[in-house]
């Protein structure tokens, strides 16, 4: 009753993407800033050259790094994000009307992705009510609810992608994944909300090596997995404090 899972393992990012990429598709890309991003898979998408992409990702990378690469090559037609601060090319293309942008509040974005993966077409939230985010959306009140009465809520819808790209710390041949520290971020939800989820993992193990209680993403969600032990990890905003003066 085991699963023949080693067939999930692909030798590199290019082969893991083979037969999947096409123009105008919807891609989810995990990560927060440059933390927990799929640098290797994004590089392979750049090389593949598909265009007109809609990319759902909290941020838009940095110039020349991660999604910044796909902006340089103008492969992205539309971004769905909560914050796109660190990217000059983004700003240029957006201001020139070459790039579409849909802002979502970060928590609404995270929940829309979870909802899509969980078979929930829509949910209500107070986030964004009374702002431009709420404009044109269904509004509902819940006067009968002891917890939710007295406020107004807007309806937000579930998201689904053709492909989700997730980065994990550890993975096994069954596709089970474990994330590390704040590199977890959007990766677990995105893994659940796409027709094909591809994981790049820092460490790949045979099935049975990961503790089942510690698995963050069950292997059912991961169709393809690629071992990328040498993928660069970048720090966007290195901030430190001085070492304490040794006492004598």
């Amino acid at each position, binding site marked *: 009753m*085991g699963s023949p899972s080693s067939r999930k393992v692909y030798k590199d990012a290019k082969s893991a993407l083979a037969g999947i990429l096409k123009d105008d598709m919807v891609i989810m890309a995990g990560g927060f800033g440059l933390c927990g991003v799929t640098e290797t898979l994004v590089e392979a998408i750049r090389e593949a050259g598909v265009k007109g992409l809609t990319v759902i990702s909290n941020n838009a990378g940095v110039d020349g790094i991660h999604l910044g690469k796909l902006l340089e090559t103008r492969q992205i037609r539309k971004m769905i994000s909560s914050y796109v601060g660190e990217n000059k090319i983004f700003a240029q293309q957006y201001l020139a009307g070459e790039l579409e942008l849909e802002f979502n509040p970060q928590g609404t974005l995270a929940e829309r992705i979870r909802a899509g993966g969980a078979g929930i077409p829509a949910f209500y939230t107070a986030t964004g009510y009374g702002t431009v985010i709420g404009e044109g959306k269904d509004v509902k009140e819940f006067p009968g609810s002891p917890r939710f009465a007295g406020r107004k809520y807007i309806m937000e819808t579930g998201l689904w992608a053709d492909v989700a790209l997730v980065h994990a710390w550890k993975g096994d041949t069954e596709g089970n994944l474990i994330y590390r520290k704040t590199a977890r971020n959007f990766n677990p939800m995105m893994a659940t909300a796409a027709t094909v989820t591809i994981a790049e993992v820092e460490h790949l193990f045979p099935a049975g090596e990961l503790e089942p209680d510690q698995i963050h993403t069950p292997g059912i969600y991961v169709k393809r997995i690629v071992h990328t032990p040498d993928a660069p990890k970048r720090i966007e905003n290195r901030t430190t404090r001085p070492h304490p003066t040794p006492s004598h």
Partner: protein
Amino acid sequence: MAWSREEMAARAAKELKDGFYVNLGIGIPTLVSNFIPEGISVALQSENGMMGMGPFPYEGEEDPDLINAGKQTVTELPITSYFSSADSFAMIRGGHIDLSILGAMQVSQNGDLANWMIPGKMVKGMGGAMDLVAGVKKVVVVMEHEAKGESKLLKRCTLPLTGAGVVDMVITDLGVFEIDRSGKNPMKLIELAPDITEDELRSKTEADYVSAL
């Protein structure tokens, strides 16, 4: 000769494909795991929060923290992961499970399913059945063709529904039927148990169907 419970389970096991993630209901569906074809491996989900369910434990190795949805003691496998009930039903509702095999009291020709309550009797509850039939990609029912001489395959279910238009295939002790959930095509007979004639089957089936034998 009508199929035995084991033969019905074996027939249902033919719906398994290599790499499938599967949820098996209580009763005959549970037997399906004994008939997984050679060369095919599947992962069994238990909706109380486990993917990759193993066989029953050896005597003396039961773990009270490791049970299936029927509250039976089970074991884990190298592929196993655990998760919460919310995450488990997110997996089910979200359409990630390939196949659910479950029992039924009644199935209608358009794929309605009734398997959770009989009015006037004490109702135990639907448990996860409504979620499974609404969420899983393919739903296969395994059941006796008749109960007390009455067909369980009906034009319309008379019992309260578990799901409306949710069944893709029905395997009874007399034959196998395909249902088009969209309702565009009629229910279709695709197999007969050995020595069961089409006439006999038709006489024992209230539902309308076309033969595709």
